């Protein structure tokens, strides 16, 4: 009975699709010979495809309803249980470590460069994870802080010859200050309102960079930004890239370390409380304003450091690198990976950045795939790839 209605619904869906795609998929006007070609086979293809996809969708929905009865569980997934045990986790970490160390020697420079971009996104994702995943503040202008970091290093280097190692903390600091500046006026906003204002802020920063020629050199951007140097040694381009890769690995480890410590600290718990229930959070004596500003500033600091590295990696920056699209991708890595979960965000960032690189052949279908995957994730696994599992405490009494 249920199956019958499901089939009927899928059938309707497929009929709709055939109707909608009829003009573009079936009719083809040959302008040279002024004839119309009717490609009926395409219609059959669309119909059958839509029917099966719709059935699959319905099947997954039903399955989710069945499984959803149990409500939220805090049972870790199989992968998490395995990795939670020392005798598996330590060898896994060692293998991962060795792989990372030999990566630039094993693969080409092209691959290493892709990996560097991916790791920058890992850093950005982990930073945004503080704001969105932990504190629950939907920030769509995150790329602005990334831009602040990148331009800080580029400009300070251009005018004052500042080196990478000074630029890195300074870029982070400046971006952190911008985080405070943005955070202050939006303290009262929540959810979608906050998203819209931060989105506007991101665009403002980009437009300023684009139009203020005397300051930021406008759309033509800034070139010849130096890569980090190693004790003043004269490195070849390849070696500089490898060196940057290692710096980035170290920074990612540092980021993981910091966030791991923060999330189970007094401050981290306050963030999560704020995300769960703002009123109850205040009633527990937590200063809402301070807690939000802290999250904004820390998240922005990481974006700033990511920006400095980005500038050093590409050696050229212009406003086109800092569009809303970047904010959206970073947000997707957090949401897709699993809000608040460190390993989830890392997995999300690597997937979202590496897959499109290697799937370049798909061309225009990349974006469609991207969107579809996100929608599917939201419906069937809203917790993300790796769901955040809270720390447990043991008491022997």
């Amino acid at each position, binding site marked *: 009975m249920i199956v019958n209605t499901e089939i009927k619904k899928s059938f309707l869906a497929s009929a709709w699709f055939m109707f909608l795609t009829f003009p573009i998929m079936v009719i083809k006007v040959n302008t040279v010979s002024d004839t119309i070609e009717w490609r009926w086979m395409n219609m059959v293809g669309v119909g059958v495809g839509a029917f099966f996809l719709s059935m699959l969708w319905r099947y997954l929905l039903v399955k989710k309803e069945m499984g959803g009865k149990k*409500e*939220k*569980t*805090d049972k870790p997934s199989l992968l998490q249980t395995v990795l939670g045990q020392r005798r598996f986790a330590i060898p896994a970490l060692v293998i991962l470590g060795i792989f990372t160390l030999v990566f630039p020697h094993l693969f080409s420079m092209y691959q290493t460069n892709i990996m560097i971009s991916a790791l920058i996104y890992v850093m950005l994702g982990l930073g945004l994870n503080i704001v969105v995943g932990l504190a629950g503040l939907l920030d769509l202008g995150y790329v602005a802080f990334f831009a602040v970091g990148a331009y800080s290093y580029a400009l300070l280097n251009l005018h004052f010859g500042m080196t990478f190692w000074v630029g890195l903390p300074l870029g982070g600091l400046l971006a952190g200050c911008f985080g405070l500046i943005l955070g202050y006026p939006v303290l009262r906003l929540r959810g979608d309102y906050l998203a819209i204002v931060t989105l506007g802020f991101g665009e403002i920063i980009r437009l300023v960079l684009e139009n203020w020629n005397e300051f930021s050199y406008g759309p033509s951007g800034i070139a010849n930004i130096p890569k980090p140097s190693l004790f003043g040694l004269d490195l070849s381009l390849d070696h500089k890239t490898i060196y940057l890769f290692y710096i980035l690995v170290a920074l990612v480890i540092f980021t993981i370390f*910091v966030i791991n*410590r*923060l999330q189970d*600290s*007094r*401050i*981290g*718990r*306050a963030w*999560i*409380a704020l*995300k*769960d*229930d703002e*009123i*109850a*959070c*205040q*009633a*527990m*004596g*937590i*200063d*809402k304003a301070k807690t939000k500003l*802290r999250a904004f500033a*820390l998240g922005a600091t990481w974006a700033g450091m990511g920006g400095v590295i980005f500038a050093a990696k590409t050696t050229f920056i212009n406003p086109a690198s800092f569009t809303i699209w970047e904010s959206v991708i970073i947000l997707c890595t957090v949401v897709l990976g699993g809000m608040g979960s460190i390993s989830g965000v890392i997995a999300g960032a690597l997937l979202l950045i590496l897959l499109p690189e290697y799937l370049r052949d798909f061309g225009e279908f990349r974006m469609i795939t991207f969107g579809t995957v996100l929608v599917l994730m939201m419906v069937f696994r809203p917790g993300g790839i790796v769901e*955040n599992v*809270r*720390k*447990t*405490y043991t*008491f022997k009494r």
Partner: protein
Amino acid sequence: MKPILEVNNLTMDFGGLRAIDHLNISINKGEIAALIGPNGAGKTTFFNCITGIYTPTGGDICISPDGGTKERINGLKPNVVTRKGLARTFQNIRLFNSMTVLENVMIGCHPVTKSGVLGAIFRTRATQAEEKLIVERSYAILEKIGLEMYVNELAVNLPYGAQRRLEIARAMATDPFLLLLDEPAAGMNPQETLELDELIIKLRDEDKVSILLIEHDMKLVMSLSDNIHVVDYGKKIAEGGPEEIRNNPLVIKAYLGEEIDA
């Protein structure tokens, strides 16, 4: 005896609606007081006013935790009010659902601890010691409230009665001198209500905390309260011990046939 909470002529308007109308209430140290009244009388609004969620339109709210100097707390932010020693629970349960039971109580320890971002990153001695203290203190509170079997359970997964008690545990962690309970027995079965009765007395006797509760369960109110305040349409219509209130014609009228018997 000097009151620890003194509310004078408190008024709260929502547009044209006067939810609280020149209300006077004072609570003494070590007292269990009840605030009762029909639905929509303004009881929750009263809590929201004194805990800083709403800024009252008029009147004074004064506290003196040790019975000494009075301090006016009108219009202070909720978190500041909590730090001053007023803790509350919510009528519509507001737990931190993505956190465990223990963590919910640990959040309550926020006002009595102080480590910050740098302490957390470098995991300094002081932070470690404080963290240990928070965990132990929270666990002790859970034991007292009888929720220790749920420590690592997510708060959402608790049965209803346990969620209500977790709200109390969380409020107690802020180390209050006055505990404000908004319908703590709502949705509880008779057995759970009985346990709640014992718990409230235990908190008063062992933790030296005074209690003001809003409650519709008259049996619980009558058995617990030293003093009962009755409000209707935001105005106080009666005050006194359980016996007095039970026989007060005004109260009976306000409840319009709702029987007040214990």
